[in-house]
Structure formats: structure tokens, C-alpha cells
């Protein structure tokens, strides 16, 4: 028996998930409370909104945009100009609602640019967006009064009266502002997926031609979606303006657009929550890692390539696969093989990281000294033993991985076959 979809006025699971999300947002800064992690969290929050809005296009609408930063960036510029106007006393508006200005600006540019870009789909769409972002970026130097030239526009978010002690001076207050908007925006964007337009844009992604024959104008579907997505991107932009108190031309650049694409893809475009994961990982990789190691770009590149090659569904798909296995109560069966493989993988990674760090020390920092501190151990990159040990670690790791891989994928395959079999039986 298939269970027909009935309308439950209250969907318990959904309530649980949303309240869990809210609680998570509230509690996280209490755990990671240092100034640095707070600003990191704030940044993650804005990137999350940005990523979700990007995924409205890519994941739900099949529109690969290389220029999404245009909307968030222009939103940010409008937001920051608004803040400066408030500071100058020529405008009265609560800071809390500044992101809305960003959103509306983003939306207006969505209306303007989207009209042109969404005329086309597929690769042509991508290419127009690439041209558009380069265009806006190049313009930024031509109109210094708006874009502030190379140095950007800066502001001070502590303006106006403090309301209930909220000045947005301390980072924690900014964090909660972002968390609030993140929560609202996430609900908004999730709700969008559950509307007629949200569903039709899925249909357009799958088969635009057929959509035309069930009464919809695909261009309008894409256009409207883009406008809404640009609105949320603008909110993200407004928040980043408050968070950084500066907006530069980089905010409207192809680099920024590329970054959101990377993050979202790493997170997983196939799932609504993929961009949330992507934002965490992406910000971690680009902001944190570059403090820890010189080789961060290499790690980022390699990590990304591995994701593309082995889990094109992103991290979200790994999580979902494991959850599914767990749900069917078969996790026990894959676990013994899994932990061994994960361990071996971690060991290999460990070896490779040591190798890479030593290599960097040797070539780029050779002039400094050959000594490097890795995981609390001092290693001399000039000594042969150090290299030998590293190579042995890597070799052992790779050997172990290749030995264990077969067993794991067999178990994994079996389990998934069985699950699919069970599901099929449930269907039939």
C-alpha cells in the first residue's frame, strides 16, 4: 500500500527540524565565543544565505550562474550607502532592517539584469552571467563615487540610538542579527520550494521544452526565480556590509561568484540544505586554513577536485547516504569496514599533509629554516629520515586504503542494493 499524501496541519518532523535549527543558531556562539570564531560564524551565516540563494538558481532551476555576486554585491553597496546616509543624518532607518535595503536593491538589479540573462538558458546563460559580472566589476573602477574605487566604501555600523542596549558594536550582536536573518531567509527560501513557481522551476530545469507545453513561459519562470534569488542574495550582501563595515569592488567580482559556486557545490546542489554545509566548509577552508598553512590553496584545490571526482553530490549526499543506511538499520553492517577505511584514509591524509608542508617549507621557505613544526612535532625538512618516514606513512596509508576499499565498497554496495530492493518492494 502506498500511503497517499494527506494534509497534516502540523508536521511534527518539520517543526522539530526548524526549532532545532533555531536552537543551533542561538547556542553556537555560546560554545564558540571567542572574537575570532564569532566573526567566522557571522561570515558563515551570510555565506549560507548567499549559497542558498545561489542554489535557487543552480540546484532548483538548473541555471549555472557565474555572476551571482553581482546581486549580493550591489545589495551590499546600497546597504552601506544607506548606512552612511543614516550616519550623516539624512535618513532615518533602523540598522536591523538594513539587510532589507540590500535585498530590495539586489531584487531591482535582478529585475534589470535578469531580464537579459534569463532570456537564454544553459551554457549561454552561464556565459552571459560571466560577461555581466565582469562588466559590473570593470564598471566599479569607472564610477568611484558609488563603488569607492579600489578601496571600497566603508561605514560605521554603530550609528543612531542604541535600542535596548543593542548598538551592533559588539560582534555577538551582529552575529544574532545575521542569525535572525538567516533563519528568516532560510524559511523563506524553503517555502519557495513548496510553491507552484518553485516546483515549475524544477520542471524547467528538467525539461524546459515540455514546460512550454503545459502552459508556462519558461523565460518568466526563470526570470521570476532569479528575481527572488537576487533578493535573498541582496540580503546576504546587506548583512556582509554590516558585518565587515566595508564593501569593495571584490563583492561584485567573478571571484566571489566563483567562490559561492564552489562552496555550494561542495555542500551539494541536490539538496536544499547543501549550501548550509558548503558555507561552513567553504569559509573554513578559505579563511581558517590560510591562517594555518601556506599550502591552503593547494589543499582547497585538491579537496575540491576530490569532491568533484568522487562525490559529485557534495557532502550533503554523503550524509544522506549514510542516514539512509542508518534509517534502514544497516549501519552496523557497513560500520566495521567503514571505520577502518576512514582511519586508513585519515592516516594517508596525515602523511600527505606532512609531505606537502615539508615540501613547502623546503622550497618556498627554504631561506627561513628547514625546521618545521607539524602537529606539535619538530621536523627537519633537510633530513633524509624525515622524508623517508613521511613517504613510508603515505605508502602504508595508500596500501591500507586500497586493501580496505574493496571490502568497504562491497559491503556498501550490498547494503544499498538491499535498501533499494526493500524500497522497490514497498512500491510494488
Amino acid at each position, binding site marked *: 500500500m502506498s500511503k497517499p499524501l494527506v494534509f497534516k496541519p502540523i508536521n511534527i518532523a518539520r517543526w522539530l527540524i526548524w526549532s532545532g535549527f533555531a536552537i543551533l543558531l542561538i547556542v553556537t556562539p555560546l560554545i564558540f565565543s571567542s572574537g575570532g570564531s564569532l566573526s567566522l560564524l557571522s561570515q558563515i551565516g551570510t555565506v549560507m544565505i548567499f549559497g542558498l540563494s545561489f542554489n535557487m538558481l543552480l540546484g532548483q532551476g538548473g541555471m549555472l550562474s557565474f555572476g551571482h555576486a553581482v546581486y549580493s554585491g550591489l545589495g551590499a553597496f546600497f546597504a552601506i550607502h544607506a548606512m552612511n546616509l543614516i550616519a550623516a543624518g539624512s535618513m532615518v532607518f533602523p540598522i536591523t532592517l538594513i539587510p532589507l535595503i540590500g535585498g530590495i536593491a539586489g531584487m531591482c538589479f535582478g529585475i534589470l539584469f535578469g531580464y537579459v540573462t534569463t532570456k537564454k538558458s544553459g551554457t549561454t546563460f552561464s556565459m552571459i552571467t560571466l560577461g555581466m559580472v565582469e562588466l559590473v566589476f570593470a564598471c566599479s573602477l569607472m564610477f568611484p563615487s558609488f563603488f569607492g574605487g579600489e578601496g571600497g566604501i566603508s561605514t560605521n555600523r554603530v550609528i543612531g540610538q542604541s535600542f535596548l542596549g543593542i548598538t551592533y558594536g559588539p560582534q555577538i550582536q551582529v552575529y544574532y542579527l545575521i542569525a535572525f536573518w538567516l533563519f528568516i531567509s532560510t524559511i523563506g527560501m524553503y517555502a519557495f520550494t513548496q510553491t507552484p513557481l518553485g516546483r515549475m522551476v524544477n520542471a524547467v530545469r528538467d525539461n524546459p521544452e515540455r514546460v512550454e*507545453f503545459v502552459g508556462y513561459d519558461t523565460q*518568466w519562470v526563470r526570470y521570476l526565480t532569479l528575481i527572488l534569488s537576487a533578493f535573498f542574495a541582496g540580503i546576504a550582501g546587506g548583512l556582509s556590509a554590516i558585518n565587515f563595515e566595508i564593501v569593495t569592488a571584490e563583492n561584485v567580482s567573478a571571484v566571489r561568484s566563483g567562490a559561492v559556486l564552489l562552496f555550494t557545490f561542495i555542500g551539494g546542489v541536490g539538496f536544499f540544505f547543501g549550501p548550509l554545509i558548503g558555507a561552513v566548509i567553504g569559509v573554513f577552508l578559505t579563511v581558517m586554513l590560510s591562517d594555518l598553512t601556506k599550502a591552503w590553496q593547494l589543499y582547497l584545490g585538491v579537496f575540491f577536485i576530490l569532491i568533484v571526482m568522487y562525490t559529485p553530490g557534495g557532502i550533503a549526499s554523503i550524509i544522506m547516504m549514510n542516514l539512509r543506511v542508518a534509517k534502514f538499520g544497516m549501519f552496523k553492517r557497513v560500520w566495521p569496514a567503514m571505520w577502518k577505511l576512514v582511519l586508513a584514509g585519515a592516516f594517508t591524509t596525515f602523511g600527505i599533509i606532512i609531505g606537502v608542508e615539508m615540501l613547502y617549507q623546503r622550497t618556498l621557505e627554504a631561506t627561513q629554516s628547514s625546521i618545521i613544526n607539524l602537529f606539535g612535532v619538530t621536523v627537519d625538512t633537510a633530513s633524509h629520515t624525515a622524508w623517508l618516514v613521511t613517504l613510508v606513512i603515505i605508502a602504508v596509508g595508500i596500501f591500507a586504503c586500497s586493501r580496505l576499499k574493496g571490502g568497504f565498497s562491497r559491503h556498501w554496495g550490498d547494503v544499498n542494493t538491499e535498501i533499494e530492493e526493500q524500497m522497490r518492494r514497498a512500491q510494488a
Partner: protein
Amino acid sequence: MSGFSLELKEVRKSFGSAEIIRGATLQVPKGERFAIIGPNGAGKSTLFNLISGRFPITSGDILLNGESISGLKPYEINRRGLSRSFQITNIFHRLSVYENLRCAVLWSLGYKYSFWHRLGGLKDAHERAEAVLEQIGLKRRRNITAGLLTYAEQRALEIGITIAGGADVILLDEPTAGMSRSESDAAVELIRKVTVGKTLLMVEHDMSVVFGLADKIAVVVYGEVIACDTPANIRNNQKVKDAYLGGHAPAEVE
């Protein structure tokens, strides 16, 4: 106003220098089932493409319920009550079967580009989709991703999407292609059921389907309608025999 659902007047279509449709004229009265037959490459699918707005016509005119629809976009034509299926399956392969059907009914129920309605709350859309699901016999496959359906099931879904919007002029392009005898029999039943009171235009090579369903048969050869008559008359029409049916009797040997 004429009593015809669909009327083709001297329709012509050229691709580059090749004229594919050479002055096709056809009148389909309301509520009748028409079959279109003709050799491969005669222009049957092209005719459908012209009627449904997929391609613009080169000259001539097409009337839907007495109004000209030439030059309109496919979605505009669809909104005026004409729906079509495709010879090569054309469904939303990453959506579930149910979602495929729900997408197909949204416009006709007036939800347009709404992003303020909650899909889950649209009772009428839900009921329509469920009803069609039942009709095309895919209830059990409701939540399967459409791309994973078997070929025959996809063909059924193709028909389902076409009829779901409740259009009163329906164009089916080889609805039973690739189906086995029994499946195509079922498909014929389905088509018969869902087109009651509607105008149907259908391209088919399977003569048992054609003769089983059609009130009238139009024969297209080289971009022209060379004959349009009742099945009995067509069966005995020498011109048709030469051009299309060949030595074989219309009904399969089986």
C-alpha cells in the same frame, strides 16, 4: 464561428530551402477523434509542431476554436486549450511521477507563477493529479522518479501529462510506439476513456490502434493531406494503399 475545433488552412512550412509541409488543409470538428497516418518523413510530427506552436508556420493559417493561433508561443496555445504529447518521450525525468502530473495541472487551475501559495495546500491540484495517476495506471509508481520508469510507463506518463491540464483539444504523437500488443491495447482504452467529449488528433503507425480509435483518418503524404475520411473508406482507398499501407492489410496478422 465555425464548429471546428481545429482548422488548418493551406499551411506551409519550409526548413531552409526544403518545403516540408506543402499546403496542408484539414478541419477537425469538435469532439471527434482524428488519426493521422502517412509514410515516414511525410510531415506528421512537423504538422503537430506547427499546430502546437513549437515552430512558426511559413504561410497559411491555423485556427483553434475559430481563432487564429499562428504566431503564438506554445504556452499561449496551451492556455487556449490545446495540449500535445511527443513522439520521443518528453517528461520531467528528475521529478516524481506525481510531481510530473501536478506540474501539468497548475496553470490550468490558475496558479500561474504563484510563489504565495503553498503547493501542499492546493487541494484541487492534488486531486486532479491523483485522478490522472489513477487513470494512467501509475498509482503504485506515484513517488518514483520519472526517469526510472520503464519505457512503457514513461509513455503512459507522457499521455498523462498531456491530458492532465484538461485541454479540450489533444494531440498525441505515436502514443503507443514501442509498446507491446497488450500494452498498446491498454493505452487505446486509456485514450478512449480520457478523450470522451474532447477533440483528439493522433499520429500512429499501428493500424490496429488507428482503426480501433479513430472516427476519421487523415492521410498525410509529402506534406499534404491527400485524403481524410472514415476508416472504412480509407482502408479501400487505392491512393492510400499505394502510398502507405502497402500489401499488408491494416490489421496486424496476429
